């Protein structure tokens, strides 16, 4: 089924919508959660919860992209679970990505100040990413949103690992420069 048809099923409260979502995007959600959570059982639980969340939130939500919507839910649930489990901190695929981006994130701010800048930052980041070459943008999002490894990105984008690495390096530098120029910090 097309995404729009699945959303319509959900709007009609037809239970097959959940099954269709699982069939179509189950693997994607598992992969996203699995890059954040080292335990596959946790990842599986997050993926299942993502479909339940989607079922409960559609309607009233009407996602423009069901794929991105589910991916975002799965990622957020996995990050919550990661926080919950982080008493015994373990390294995951995304932890390495955190470290790489550290140079872009500077300064300590309190919550209200951060909240005030959240909207501004959202516009800044999306404009920045749209201004990047398509390949660089895709590598960046795959690395720092989906948490994919360099090898995975190179394989799925049919590029060499060195090309991906250097592209990420340049994009990080451009992001840092743009943030300094716009006087943005988080």
């Amino acid at each position: 089924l097309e995404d729009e048809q699945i959303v319509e099923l959900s709007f009609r409260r037809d239970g097959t919508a959940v099954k269709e979502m699982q069939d179509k995007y189950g693997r994607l959600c598992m992969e996203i959660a699995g890059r954040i959570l080292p335990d596959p059982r946790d990842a599986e639980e997050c993926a299942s919860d993502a479909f339940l969340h989607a079922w409960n939130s559609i309607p009233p939500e009407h996602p423009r992209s069901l794929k991105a919507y589910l991916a975002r839910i799965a990622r957020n649930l996995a990050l919550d679970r990661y926080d919950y489990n982080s008493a015994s901190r373990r390294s995951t695929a995304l932890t390495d990505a955190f470290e790489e981006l550290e140079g872009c994130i500077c300064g300590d701010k309190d919550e209200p100040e951060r909240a005030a800048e959240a909207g501004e930052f959202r516009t800044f980041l999306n404009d920045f990413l749209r201004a990047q070459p398509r390949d660089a943008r895709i590598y960046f999002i795959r690395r720092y949103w989906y948490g994919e490894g360099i090898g995975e990105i190179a394989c799925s984008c049919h590029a060499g690992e060195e090309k991906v690495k250097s592209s990420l390096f340049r994009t990080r530098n451009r992001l840092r420069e743009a943030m300094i120029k716009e006087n943005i910090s988080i």
Partner: protein
Amino acid sequence: MNESRFDTLMRSVDDGLLEEAETPRKNNRTWKMIAYAAVAACVCVAAVGMLTHPKVPRRRADGKPGAGGHRSPDNPAGLLAAAAG
């Protein structure tokens, strides 16, 4: 590293960009291979054509077709001359 700050950074990415990044990309190599195969096929067709195509007859000065050549159907003068003599 503070993961929540990292999360703040990346949580802002729009759905459209996420979908673009997740959509499988076409393999450029496949298109290159198709292009190479098309060029190779053209070369083969040209080579076969050159080897099998009949030679174009050279018309002699008196209008008769050259020895060993084929009579051209669009050359009635040549055909008549050949029939007469």
